[in-house]
């Protein structure tokens, strides 16, 4: 760590040096050299004591950062040194945050790719013992239940948000905002038990219906929709509402034809992300839908399989030999991640294509 190109600091008492030349300058490769030096040093440590990969990376980052800071402080001064130090910290934090994400995606793809085949998408688990079988019934169940959830939550959520932004005032608005905040924090299993208790009142204990799952998920999804829609509607400039009123347009028509179309990109994005948020919920579906091996398209009649619950049961009750069911569980997880990612892409596309255009 001695690759420096020091130029002596100007002696005090002379005329001030031109701006930018008072101090020495590190070459651009100096920080990288510092980390390389740290890596070499840690290899030597490794040979002496033996380290695992995590410690190896940790020591390299710490030593490299200290090296960069010391070097920069000596040559370029305190301000630049602090700048480099914080840059190192921020990049390290980013790397740390990426570790679980990358590791998770890698693990799920590596293990799930095995069964990502036509059979998985084409067949249910009816009559399957051991090898083969698929998750057709679970995929369809997830789609049906999620669509039903969106059907319940989106109108309620959007109308609530419109009330809060356009009409709400005083106590009632505060109460609704507070309750929405509380709903955001409800544990998902509580939502499931709520739906179960509600339907058990009418249909007796032990009831399992697709619509129950949709109700449970709605409890979780409505506050998310309200929150995001509220934020987006608040962003619509008041000037547009006034422009509409000044044309003699009634308030409700202003909302329907000016406010909502202006905010439609944000509303679409918010709804899509809310769907992505609930599509992977497991606990409430466990108590409201149960699991079944066959395909059931009717949410008002009996048990339905869904991807998260399917993965859960394949993993916890794999049967003998267990490997086939465990493979199916990983693939179910992979399909679920792909669904969520797909929804995120859709959200991006919505916000791009529906955003108001300036058309310059």
């Amino acid at each position, binding site marked *: 760590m001695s690759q420096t190109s020091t130029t002596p600091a100007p002696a005090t008492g002379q005329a001030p040096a031109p701006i930018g030349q008072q101090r020495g300058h590190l070459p651009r490769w100096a920080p990288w050299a510092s980390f390389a030096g740290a890596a070499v040093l840690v290899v030597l440590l490794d040979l002496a004591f033996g380290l695992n990969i995590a410690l190896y990376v940790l020591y390299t980052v710490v030593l490299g950062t200290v090296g960069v800071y010391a070097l920069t402080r000596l040559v370029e001064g305190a301000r630049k040194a602090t700048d480099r130090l914080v840059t190192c910290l921020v990049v390290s934090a980013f790397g740390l945050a990426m570790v679980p994400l990358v590791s998770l995606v890698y693990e799920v793809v590596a293990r799930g790719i095995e069964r990502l085949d036509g059979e998985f998408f084409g067949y249910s688990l009816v009559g399957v013992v051991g090898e083969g079988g698929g998750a057709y019934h679970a995929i369809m169940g997830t789609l049906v239940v999620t669509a039903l959830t969106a059907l319940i939550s989106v109108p309620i959520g959007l109308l609530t948000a419109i009330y809060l932004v356009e009409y709400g005032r005083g106590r009632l608005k505060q109460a609704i905002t507070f309750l929405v905040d509380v709903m955001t924090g409800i544990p998902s299993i509580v939502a499931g038990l709520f739906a179960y208790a509600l339907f058990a009142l009418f249909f007796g204990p032990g009831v399992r219906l697709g619509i129950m799952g949709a109700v449970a998920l709605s409890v979780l999804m409505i506050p998310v929709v309200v929150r995001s829609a509220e934020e987006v509607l608040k962003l619509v400039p008041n000037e547009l509402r006034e*422009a*509409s009123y000044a044309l003699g347009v009634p308030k409700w*028509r202003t909302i329907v034809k000016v406010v909502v179309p202006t905010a439609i990109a944000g509303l679409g994005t918010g709804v899509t992300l809310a769907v992505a948020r609930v599509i992977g919920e497991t606990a409430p579906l466990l108590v409201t839908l149960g699991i079944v091996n066959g395909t059931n398209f009717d949410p008002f009649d009996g048990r339905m399989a869904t991807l998260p619950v399917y993965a859960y049961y394949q993993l916890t009750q794999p049967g003998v030999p267990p490997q086939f069911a465990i493979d199916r569980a990983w693939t179910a997880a992979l399909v679920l991640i792909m669904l969520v990612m797909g929804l995120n892409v859709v959200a991006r596309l919505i916000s791009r294509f529906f955003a108001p255009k300036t058309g310059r």
Partner: protein
Amino acid sequence: MAKRIDVSDLNIYYGNFLAVENVTVSIEPRSITALIGPSGCGKSTFLRSLNRMHEVIPGARVEGKVVMDGQDLYAPDVDPVDVRQHIGMVFQRPNPFPTMSIYDNVAAGIRLNNKKMKRADLDTLVERSLRGANLWNEVKDRLDRPGAGLSGGQQQRLCIARAIAIEPDVLLMDEPCSALDPISTLAIEDLMTELKERFTIVIVTHNMQQAARVSEQTGFFNLSGVGQPGRLIEFNSTEKIFSNPDEKATEDYISGRFG
């Protein structure tokens, strides 16, 4: 069809706060009336009370009478939405609807109110309004482009076209040029002198030269202190206001010896 407006003993409140006190004034048809005065003196509030726009703000209300050709605008059976269809408004910042094309912006008053109109009639109306706002030649080849893509001055003229497309009797303008450059300002001032043949125009402005250039009548608003209500100090012909005002306060304000 321009109409006159008679305001008598108008008090305007925001909640319990009296913002404008005791205004009595007659606004002549087919002329431009300018309202001047320092910031916060209630000119905009008064302007917005003329087409009941200030009721949009929660808690805002008025006492007194605003009569347009014999019809009391604040009578209990009058719907504010109807009032606004007869008294149009142009705002300080150009505010075309960002989701609509230039054409749709001009047609907004018709479309948003779900009035049925034949396509050919609507085309005629849009062209007439854009010509009326001196914007037709600049946008006739790109009527389907977004209104937000125009320059600031063009956007403001688009907003004027949108306001005159519903054929109001009165046009209120709240500092319509304060966000524009001098050339766009000149274009809008020329436009106002053309429009006064057909509409009664009331304009709020901070630019006294503008008031002197375009208006026939001028009203000077002032307030005696912070937290005090604004008052109409003097209302006279523009010539008199700017040469030999009756009130000392008006002369001080106009000659810059204010405060």
